[in-house]
């Protein structure tokens, strides 16, 4: 293994672990203010929306319809696995039809 490659990989590993542990570390022990607690309550939904919105737009009509279908199944069944199956099956089907 080359030295510069090992060095680069270890630097990437260190940075990545820092971002993963940093959130725990920053919040350790301190009781968050009411405002911060409210922001953290809203953070999961906001992050998930931020993850999926550009992804949905970039995936075109097939992707958007598939995600809408997955959401519908999740609402109707209240379960995650049927929604995953529906999303994957729908996007594969629509891509095959549209392309």
């Amino acid at each position: 293994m080359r030295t510069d490659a090992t060095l680069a990989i270890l630097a990437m590993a260190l940075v990545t672990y820092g971002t993963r542990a940093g959130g725990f570390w920053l919040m350790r022990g301190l009781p968050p203010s009411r405002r911060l607690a409210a922001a953290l309550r809203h953070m999961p939904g906001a992050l998930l929306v931020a993850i999926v919105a550009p992804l949905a737009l970039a995936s075109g009509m097939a992707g958007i319809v598939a995600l809408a279908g997955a959401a519908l199944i999740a609402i109707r069944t209240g379960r995650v696995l049927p929604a995953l199956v529906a999303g994957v099956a729908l996007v594969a089907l629509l891509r095959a039809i549209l392309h």
Partner: protein
Amino acid sequence: MRETITRDELAGDAEAATFTASGALLGARRALPLAITGLADGLVFGVLARQAGMSLGEALLMSGAVNTGTAQFVALGLWVAPLPVVALAATTLVVGARHLLMGATLAAHLGRLSPLRRYGSAFFLTDETWALALRERALGTLDGAFIMGGGLALFASWVVSTAGGYLAGASLRDPARWGLDFVFPALVVALLAGMWRGRATLAPWGVAAAVALAAAVLLPGKWYILLGGIAGAVVGALRDAD
């Protein structure tokens, strides 16, 4: 006392002072669909790592020590001798900064664990394990070992498929053709469907989407997740205060 109350508030309905084998197993079970479909990603990474001129040892060290999809794929684009070590580290930071916020949202739960368990779990905090943990928390069944269990299943899948892809070498069929790239987006949407609270979530989510879409166009890497998440959370907190 006050600290306990605030933390419980943050934690939602559940507590996770426990750290059990059954909690880890549940995590692995929940992560299984993602671990199986994720094999395709690792295979692709292995193939591309070989094309980029990495040795098998380097590809495995990267998948094992960095343990992240996106940053590794981005790194392949920069993998030209002489290796730009600083640029690689900086890009990894940009791509991974969202994990700071994800960790913060779960800190109230994992903060009750011993440092070894907490910072051991941190290695396995990925988009996938975080999203799955959110759901367990909403159900009130989030064990302290859940992230480690789910993370180990995904880690095994990622490292093994990296080796497989590297050794297979030949070009693989496009995973997008089978819709396998849509397991994670579908998971995210399914989780959001369960988190929807009508008007209370409309404004924060709308702002998060708008900011993320704009940032995805204007900025490199995955800044859009970080910025969209912060913007949505701030709007939500401001609305709650009114």
